[in-house]
């Protein structure tokens, strides 16, 4: 029974497949805390990615988001990973006041493409509590004007959403929201 259930789970494997696809592009770079060292669910989708495609960062969320914008302005497509939605809150200034406003500020000339990964913290088998499990999807959909916000609920959509984030012609940035509980249930 357990084996049959395992075979049906696609959420994590689709994330891994998406990361492999992104890694094939010369411009992409994976950054954040725990992209190279274990410690969260997102790491488990990046462990197969080559070391030279990853930059392990200190914990400085606001700097991380601004640094991602800077990398994008100078030719990279960063996949910037924030292990929990609750932690992305610390990067709001760079997300809302900067990355989200770059086009408006620059007469549509600066068009940084940043792919932001975050995850709603899992509640099963352990519940991380109010600072580790919040779902702010609607808040971000309301506050962001230039950045696309995508909720990754169905495994069959995951690959196409990441593919679109990398290739969309308007080069807009995308925030992709995972759910930690789906790693073990979908």
């Amino acid at each position, binding site marked *: 029974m357990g084996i049959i259930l395992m075979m049906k789970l696609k959420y994590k494997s689709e994330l891994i497949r998406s990361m492999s696809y992104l890694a094939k592009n010369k411009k992409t770079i994976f950054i954040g805390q725990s992209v190279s060292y274990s410690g969260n669910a997102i790491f488990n989708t990046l462990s197969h990615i080559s070391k030279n495609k990853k*930059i392990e960062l*200190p914990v*400085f969320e*606001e*700097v*991380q*988001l*601004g*640094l*991602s*914008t*800077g*990398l*994008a*302005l*100078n*030719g*990279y497509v*960063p996949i910037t990973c924030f292990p929990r939605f609750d932690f992305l809150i610390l990067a709001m*200034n*760079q997300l809302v*006041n*900067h990355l989200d406003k*770059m086009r408006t*500020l*620059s*007469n549509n*000339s*600066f068009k940084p493409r940043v792919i932001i990964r975050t995850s709603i913290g899992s509640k099963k088998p352990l519940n991380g509590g109010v600072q580790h499990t919040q779902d702010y999807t609607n808040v971000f959909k309301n506050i962001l004007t230039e950045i696309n916000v995508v909720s990754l609920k169905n495994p069959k959509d995951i690959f196409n959403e990441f593919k679109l984030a990398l290739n969309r012609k308007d080069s807009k940035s995308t925030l992709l929201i995972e759910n930690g509980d789906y790693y073990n249930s979908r």
Partner: protein
Amino acid sequence: MKNLKQKLINFELTIKKIYEKGKIKGPIHLSGGNEDQLIKIFKRIKNNDWVISNWRSHYHALLQGISEKKVLREILKGKSMSLNFKEHKFIASSIVGGGIPIGLGIALAIKRKKQKNKVFIFVGDMTFETGIFYECYKYAKNYNLPIKFVVEDNGLSTNTPTKKAWKTISKKPKDIIYYKYKRRFPHHGTGSWVLF
């Protein structure tokens, strides 16, 4: 140099006049009092270098070689405090410390791509005291990134004396460019009452 200094001063006086006629529908942040220091600093900055500025950016933009016409056009649109020009690698944020991590990322890309240019990041004395400056300075220094920080110290943040608010101010590291000056104009506007 004398001509350049006068050219900078004249540009701001022109903006002042236009603003006082009520023709700029946004706040302006005039530069002034730091012409000599900036002219000297910009001799080190090449055309291909990135400049990360802030809300008081008119002089930075002009000295980076952006034409008066272009800068004026943006100011007339009400963008005095957020001048951004991709073709000149010029970025300005009107949020305290906002441009610093962006400059950090640009510099990280320069290093990884083995490009030859640098990033110059201009901050005020209050921004120098912030956590985000400290984080970015530390990361840039530890990874030997091609960044030069410039601290422009007029002692004030809007009208709050930096030293009074913090009780004391931090020592400036030797590897940053630092200069003091007295600003010629108020934080924003010209000091005259303008009816829009």
